[in-house]
């Protein structure tokens, strides 16, 4: 291929993909399969309603309500179903608790399974090869990429999401939050702390 010829076809991946995506939507619409406004509504839901704030609310409630926490660890879907607007989690959510002896981390090595209803759409790193390949073999190395380190003898449990079960990490409640309200506590719960690649914010630390 000559230099000149190459330049004539030098579309970026983005623009080529963008054109093809538009064409596909046109075809699906013209064939009567989808209504574009319905696609807009799906997108809007993921941009506004569905995000880590849903999971944060569940974690904060578990930190303040021992009965809810026990129910959550027993049957995550059922317990979350009692919370009203975050009840769209389906039947197969498993909540796993971090303790002083054990740290949990969630991955999907085969694709990118993730608890969407609790955390929103997954970040790029969760879906990318470095995380998917290394989390099950070298989780401490992965955590170092997040500037997270664990005590040397702490057990690390990695949950590979290979089926339709979904996993949410219940992080440990930060010290210095005695008497805090559920709403205040929810503000400390980060997305990564519910995946297991981070910790909740500590009181007074910049967010």
């Amino acid at each position, binding site marked *: 291929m000559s230099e000149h010829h190459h330049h004539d076809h030098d579309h970026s991946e983005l623009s080529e993909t963008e054109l093809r995506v538009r064409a596909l939507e046109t075809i699906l619409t013209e064939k009567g399969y989808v209504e574009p406004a319905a696609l807009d509504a799906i997108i809007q839901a993921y941009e506004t309603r569905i995000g880590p704030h849903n999971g944060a609310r569940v974690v904060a409630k578990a930190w303040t309500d021992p009965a809810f926490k026990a129910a959550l660890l027993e049957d995550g879907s059922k317990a979350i179903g009692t919370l009203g607007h975050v009840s769209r989690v389906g039947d197969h959510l498993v909540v796993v608790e971090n303790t002083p002896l054990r740290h949990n981390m969630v991955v999907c090595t085969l694709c990118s399974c993730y608890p969407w209803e609790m955390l929103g759409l997954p970040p790029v790193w969760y879906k990318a090869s470095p995380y998917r390949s290394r989390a099950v*073999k070298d989780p401490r190395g992965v955590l170092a990429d997040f500037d997270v380190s664990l005590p040397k003898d702490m057990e690390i449990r990695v949950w590979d999401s290979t089926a*339709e079960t979904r996993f949410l990490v219940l992080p440990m409640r930060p010290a210095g939050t005695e008497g805090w309200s559920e709403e205040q506590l929810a503000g400390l719960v980060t997305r990564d702390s519910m995946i297991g690649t981070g910790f909740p914010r500590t009181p007074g630390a910049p967010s």
Partner: protein
Amino acid sequence: MNGVHDMGGMDGFGKVEPEPNEPVFHADWESRVLAMVRAMGAAGAFNIDTSRFYRETLPPDVYLSSSYYRKWFLGLEEMLIDKGYLTREEVAAGHAKQPGKALKHGKFDLGQVERVMVRGKFARTAPAPAKFKIGDRVRAKNIHPATHTRLPRYVRGHVGIVELNHGCHVFPDTAAMELGENPQWLYTVVFEGSDLWGEDGDPTLKVSIDAFEPYLDRT
């Protein structure tokens, strides 16, 4: 299939690179792809396992060099052509050339959106009692189907302990190939890191997968 998508334990992909304040989408087309996949799936054009299989069967170099949503797009387009919902001529023209094929659940319109927001149900009535109970030692089978499977390579042949029983679920291996839901018992099986990765493996590591009963043998 033993594809590049089955990447647990592979080396050489480099550091994980978290992006501070990452947006939900990095471009508008990504959001359109997400919505089209969800919509066509909800309309009944394909099941979730079939859609995964189409992404896995992308050529390895394409799989590894494409972003997540580009893989979704490429898989979606190919799947819709294969299932007869559109033609290559239509894709080339960028327009419909013939009427659409009937969708199992009808056109995806605004009235259908809330249905997509509730996670699907994958539990099914058990056709037989569970073979394994919590605490059982099981070996992940050394199987290498050329079609879709959810048994990752890195556990095959290894012994683990049954930790949870999730009930009977749709079996992805047959569902992906449109050979039926074929419900199977699903267990969380936990493996020692030092068993999976040898004596250099992290001694504090345990890894679990969710394994369908046909993936497992009693030891």
